[in-house]
């Protein structure tokens, strides 16, 4: 029996990585859900908006590093983040003006808008690759760890280590701040309220004198800010690669749908459900069980429910089960 070691092993390999990954997915899913709630289509270009925002931030980071500016123990990229958000917001507003507005005026069906966003996705995909290339780019600087596995072992005398990377802590803290700010904005400010009104009932909102173009513009700016923040946090925690950001689209959409499209709370819950389901269901409990059980009962096998090959099957099985029994997702979003 060694409850402490078991707990630390669980925290180190399941909880901490899952929490950081979940926060990244939640921020991505929030952007998707906002667009769906207010503009009423699934924005396939979201993953590449994240890539674009991260790219601008990386360029800004390089500029700052060249100028000798740094944020001390924190990554320099955090200083460049506002620049990334501003440029990305300009890009999506431009895209809206050039592409989406036309279809909005036509009152195009959501399916058409989805395909349009697919086209936008490919264009953004190309822009990012043209500017920064296809290679993997690491842009994390500053202190890498809050605490390393080795230090933790020495400090506590336990045989298991607990590593917490600076980027994981930053990810979770930033996600909390961003989410709190977003909820305050949506619930307390006039613009936020008009956005919610527009989302609930477009015609009624128009009748009460809400300016639709303004609502749309604010939505895009928020989506750009969320996408860039999520992308930069993900890139800091892992690394930047245009292709991986495109692949991120899948778990992000799964999160948004599980939580309920259009529901901000749902997006956050969905992000964590998907992240933890990927890590926990395929986790080999051997180490934890060996610590917890008496020696005689210690397992020989891996005590793994299913192989890690199936981690995506797990998140999609959850997605299907949720849609079967709660078609609008866990938090009563709009039905898909």
């Amino acid at each position, binding site marked *: 029996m060694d409850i402490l070691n078991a707990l630390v092993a669980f925290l180190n390999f399941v909880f901490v990585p899952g929490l950081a990954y979940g926060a990244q997915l939640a921020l991505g899913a929030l952007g998707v859900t906002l667009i769906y709630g207010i503009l009423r289509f699934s924005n396939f270009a979201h993953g590449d908006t994240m890539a674009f925002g991260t790219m601008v931030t990386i360029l800004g980071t390089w500029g700052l590093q060249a100028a000798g500016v740094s944020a001390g123990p924190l990554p320099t990229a955090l200083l460049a983040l506002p620049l990334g958000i501003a440029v990305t917001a300009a890009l999506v507003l431009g895209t809206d003006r050039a592409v989406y507005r036309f279809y909005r005026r036509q009152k195009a069906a959501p399916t058409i808008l989805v395909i349009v966003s697919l086209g936008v996705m490919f264009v953004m995909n190309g822009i990012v690759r043209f500017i920064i290339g296809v290679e993997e780019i690491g842009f994390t600087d500053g202190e890498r760890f809050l605490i390393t596995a080795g230090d933790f072992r020495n400090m506590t005398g336990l045989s298991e280590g607990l590593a917490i990377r600076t980027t994981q802590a930053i990810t979770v803290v930033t996600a909390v701040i961003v989410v709190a700010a977003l909820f305050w904005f949506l619930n307390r400010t006039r613009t936020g309220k008009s956005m919610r009104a527009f989302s609930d009932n477009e015609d009624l909102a128009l009748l009460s004198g809400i300016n639709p173009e303004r609502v749309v513009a604010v939505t895009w700016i928020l989506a750009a800010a969320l996408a860039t923040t999520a992308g930069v946090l993900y890139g800091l925690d892992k690394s930047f690669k245009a292709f991986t950001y495109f692949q991120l689209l899948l778990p992000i959409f799964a999160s948004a749908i599980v939580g309920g499209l259009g529901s901000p709370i749902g997006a956050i819950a969905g992000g964590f459900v998907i992240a933890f389901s990927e890590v926990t269901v395929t*986790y080999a409990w051997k180490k934890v069980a060996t610590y917890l059980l008496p020696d005689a009962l210690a397992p020989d096998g891996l005590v793994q429910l299913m192989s890690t*090959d199936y981690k995506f099957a797990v998140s999609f099985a959850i997605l299907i089960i949720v849609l079967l029994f709660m078609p609008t997702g866990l938090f009563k979003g709009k039905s898909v």
Partner: protein
Amino acid sequence: MKKLLLAGTATVALAGAASAQDVKLGIILGFTGPLESITPSMAAGAELAVNEVNAAGTLLDGAQVTVVRADSTCVDAAAATAAAERLVTSDKVQGIMGADCSGVTGAVLQNVARPNGVVMISPSATSPALSEAEDDGLFFRTAPSDARQGEVIAEILQERGMGSVAITYTNNDYGKGLADSIQAAFEKAGGTVTISAAHEDGKADYSAEVAALAAAGGDMLVVAGYVDQGGKGVIQGALDTGAFETFFLPDGMYGDSLVQAIGSSLDGSFGTVPGTDSEGATKILDMAKEAGFDGTSSYVGESYDAASLILLAMQAAGSSAPADYKAKIEEVANAPGEKIYPGDLAKAIELLKAGTDIDYVGATSVELIGPGESAGSFREYTVKDGQFVTDRFR
């Protein structure tokens, strides 16, 4: 009118025959995809051989060799097949240097090379499954099968006192084949494999894989993956969480980008990469340096050898038609005969013209065994201070 048409066609046919002197060589490698960081050097290696032959200008009584590059993508069999199809039917190449990854190589072999009767020499497809593939005598490889690499790796693990290892592999023909052969050889030698788990390339997060590997434990982690892809992600995750400290890095994980990305934590890890200490290996390095690319990158020598073998076999057969020269490849590659090293291609052509037998040694000590694959020699290396230091050759 009919006569005019006939005359016209005849002239065109003649014109075609006149320029058929020239030889076209297809190079199909994954210029995009998981191997995109090493394929440019591989192609440059093959083109070294082509340039050498062109500079001599004596191949098949003055034929010039042109190279046509195509993208195998490494992972997308359909895209690779389409690209190879274009090489054969539209560019009309008489031989293919490639493909690189085992999965696409098998696809190109079955879908394009065999139906069209074109010779293929892969410099880097190492899946044991390709040894048994039907090939009509058209397929060769200058890289050894992973069954051999598995034995060598098991030997090294034993020698370095590793009693138990965890294995993670990229989920494709290459990764699975290598992981299986390592496991079989290592267990036969008395070692324990605690877990052999796949990872997918290009994914967002590897926490789940790292967690499972850590739970299984072991003296070290064998990473049969790719340097630009999931392999790197798993190593980073394992280091960050303190799950493993040393890693075994087989050929797919050999690359400077790994050291750059991971940094000093990688010191002490070791691995194997196909390589030899023969005279040819140093020659190719000098030639690569002169041509302005990195000769130490994976499979540069194998690529040079693959291209050379095709061209020399053509000379031996006195024809650039695959059906004529395919039988000559093993003859040119193997003993007996005068030994041919990189840079000696002009001499080799002269010898073949004079009817002398040659033994192509090349950059990687090529000796084709079994179904036309290199017996292979491996370089064992350790990472020290961010450098790959060669320990020995075996």
